[in-house]
């Protein structure tokens, strides 16, 4: 009788132990995120608080400044914000239509042997590390632009947009193809039976039917574009100042700014890098929220 109760207690203890083990593993992710957010926000917000040991900086100047010259104590990310926005927007403007149309090709238009080849190829190409796109941009795209740019070099916003577009294409295509294929066949059959052409069916029925998946692809693409660093460093030019007024102007992005100075920044400069991260965070959050609102609205219709 007692033995059984002892067994129960012993078993209950070891089961609780394991439960705790698994729980801690799960909480590890939470701990990491908390640590990341705390570290970045505490360091990044100090320059704008009074009593910072490295000196205070005006937040407004930080956000709108167009010069980043640590040697002179100037820290303006304004021009980088604009550059990042332009770059992401441009990449989406090019990448989304081309991506969706390519997905339409693979899912609907291509003969099946061609589709069978293209799809795994695009998926495989989504796995190429970003640095290699940067190498290509550096060696091919920049010299190409150099041929017709009014600026002294080919390092430009245009180069950045082109590289980002190329990087974002495979993921947009892959997800859109899956979404298009997931649209129930009876939608397509219904449309065709009513006398619509294949093209009309694609644009009036299939693409709207795959809306949710396609928007997910766009969200992921935006995420990748705005967060991309290494490929872009090699083609952007990274000037210390200058709001890009034409696509041929060299640019410095929020992300590249962080990497360029990371190795040797100290004191106020280091804190400013964290501040740049905060700005980056805010933009990613804002874009994600907007896109998910658009998604919710679109899916409801």
């Amino acid at each position, binding site marked *: *009788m007692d033995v*059984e*109760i002892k*067994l*129960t207690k012993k*078993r209950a203890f070891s089961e609780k132990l394991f439960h705790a083990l698994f729980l801690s593993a799960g909480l590890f992710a939470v701990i990491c995120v908390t640590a990341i957010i705390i570290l970045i926000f505490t360091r990044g917000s100090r320059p704008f608080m009074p009593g910072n040991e490295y000196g205070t900086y005006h937040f407004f100047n930080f956000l709108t400044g167009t010069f980043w010259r640590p040697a002179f104590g100037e820290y303006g990310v304004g021009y980088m914000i604009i550059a990042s926005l332009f770059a992401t927007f441009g990449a989406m403007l090019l990448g989304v239509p081309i991506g969706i149309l390519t997905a339409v090709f693979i899912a609907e238009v291509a003969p099946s042997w061609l589709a069978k080849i293209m799809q795994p190829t695009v998926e495989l190409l989504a796995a190429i590390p970003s640095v290699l796109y940067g190498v290509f941009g550096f060696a091919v795209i920049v010299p190409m632009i150099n041929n017709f740019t009014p600026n002294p070099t080919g390092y430009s916003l245009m180069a950045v947009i082109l590289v980002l577009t190329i990087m974002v294409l495979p993921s947009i295509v892959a997800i859109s193809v899956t979404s298009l294929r997931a649209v129930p066949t009876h939608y397509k059959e219904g449309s065709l039976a009513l006398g619509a052409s294949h093209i009309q069916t694609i644009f009036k029925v299939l693409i709207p039917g795959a809306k949710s998946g396609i928007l997910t692809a766009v969200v992921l693409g935006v995420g990748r574009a705005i967060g991309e660093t290494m490929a872009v460093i090699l083609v952007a030019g990274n000037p210390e100042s200058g709001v890009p007024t034409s696509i041929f102007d060299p640019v410095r992005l929020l992300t590249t700014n962080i990497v360029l100075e990371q190795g040797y920044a100290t004191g106020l400069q280091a804190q400013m890098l964290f501040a740049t991260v905060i700005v980056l965070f805010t933009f990613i959050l804002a874009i994600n929220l907007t896109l998910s609102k658009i998604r919710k609205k679109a899916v409801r219709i």
Partner: protein
Amino acid sequence: METKFKIQDLNLFYGDFQALHNITLDLYENKVTALIGPSGCGKSTFLRTLNRMNDLIDNVKITGKILLDGRKDIYEKMDVIGLRTRVGMVFQKPNPFPMSIYDNVAYGPRCQGLKDKKKLDEIVEEALRGAALWDEVKDKLNKSGMSLSGGQQQRLCIARAIAMAPEVILMDEPTSALDPIATQKVEQLMGKLKEKYTIIIVTHSMQQAARISDKTAFFLMGEVIEFGDTDKIFTNPDKKETEDYITGRFG
């Protein structure tokens, strides 16, 4: 007749919904007791209280007592794992593990710490014989359990349960997923099994209950309406609801 399970005033709640109402019942040793009744009236739920499988679901509350061997409350005074080594279960859909036939049958004993290969061999053979499966699989013990036919898989699950040398075997509609011939084989098996074990079987088929069971309990809306000898229940039931169900007026 010895009482194997003594159920006293059992109530079961899923959250606010009461699934079992005041069940008081005696389940007898070495007999086949059938639980019949229309779908969703608590038969499976009741069956699962007997080996505390309901513990797996959140939000389940149980009041009342279930005494094993008429003496020990399985909820208060027993280690749940120990309980399950004494009360085995066979499920509706055959669910052999993705392992060899041998490993399937040896699973339970191994979990209890048995490692001696010779002993395991003995147990496996005995269990497979007890499930009337030995002759069919003795040459392919290390083939996957999933390679057997539906009926054989179910007998494998029975062998798996028997390997634990339980005292009670709970069966939750064990033949409802099987074809008639496999069903017949399993039913024949049950007649043999009751010599060593106490069998409680939930079944949708009244004909099956009539064929194989000694005692029958009729469930309706979470209550036991009537419980008694199978012959009596099916030829001369006391309650009107029982008679209506038996004669097919509903269900």
